[in-house]
């Protein structure tokens, strides 16, 4: 089951979704923000909060309330990614860097 961030009815009615899907294990950890109207999607990296290219974009494209919910649930989203993809966890690259710091 993908992780589907529970959004208020008002945002759902406007077509917003915030999800971590299945079959994304090869990609950098991210959450997908989707807007049905206009068929638009953004992917926000869960390591650094940067919008992944492609498709790119930025917070200016996204409803302020959706942004606030994503920020409020940031730790939970990271935890859910790690639960879905234990083979590609958010922490793995950070651990590498820590282990490898002296080289």
């Amino acid at each position, binding site marked *: 089951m993908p992780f589907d961030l529970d959004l208020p009815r008002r945002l759902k009615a406007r077509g917003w979704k915030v999800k971590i899907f*299945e079959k*994304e294990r*090869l990609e950098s950890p991210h959450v*997908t923000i*989707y807007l049905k109207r206009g*068929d638009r999607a953004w992917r926000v990296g869960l390591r650094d909060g940067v919008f992944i290219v492609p498709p790119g974009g930025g917070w200016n494209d996204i409803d302020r309330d959706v942004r606030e919910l994503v920020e409020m649930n940031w730790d939970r989203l990271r935890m859910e990614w790690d639960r*879905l993809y234990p*083979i590609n966890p958010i922490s793995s690259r950070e651990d590498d*860097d820590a282990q490898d710091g002296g*080289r």
Partner: protein
Amino acid sequence: MPKTAAAERSDVAPKYVLVGSGARLHGPLPKGVERWRVADLPRRLREAKPRTVFISYGRGSTDAILKARLKELGRPRFAQLLAIEPPRMESVPSLLETFDLVLGLGSSYRWLPPRELVTVLSSEHARDRFIGGAIDPEAATVTLVRGDGETMVFPFSFFEPSGSGVEPDFDRLAFDDHGRTVVLGEYEAAADGILYESDAGYRRRLRELMSEAERGFGPSLRRLRIQKRLRREDFAPLPAKTIAHIERGAAPPPKPTLERIARRLGVPPEDIETY
């Protein structure tokens, strides 16, 4: 004298034609998409370009296309028919003579909702979305149809459960989010994830758009290692730390190391960077 909107429309043959009442689409259709009434088919088919893609929402409308077309024997085939309702089995040989490609020849096909379907078909990203598909329980395969009509066949095992433990339910195939999501019951797979694992051409296109940090040799090795379900410790005698170091770099390692890694991954060394 300026052309009227109607005159301009008649100059441009539609690429996608909806036939049948099942579509129930309200509001304007995307550019390049038209709806034709069954009664108008004989006249409109004479004007249609061979590259036209027909989307038929009913068995009756598929029969009507066929009858109208067979009155024009000797004309080139049309590009494609998308039969949302499966056609009569008896009509299949004639359909295969009339269209280069017929999709939807089976009762297990499922499609995107009509509005999303026409939006995806007419978008520049059509090839990167799944508009429909079918399940074959005997062969244990999932067939997915891309927006450009290409089909891809996957074994059930391709849809492995993620860490959530939820198994895909192959009796509940559906498509959502304008073809970005393949739904198998509670299991919802991302189309881009499916394409990334299975289509080298998609990977190449994506790599051109990726940030520098994601494009180098290291990130490619990391993705391929994960796809092959290997840990960094699985490359002995190469130490796990060496693999971690390579995965953070942009350049490939020296040739002997590269060949050893490629052997363990089961791919030619030059293929690693395509992932």
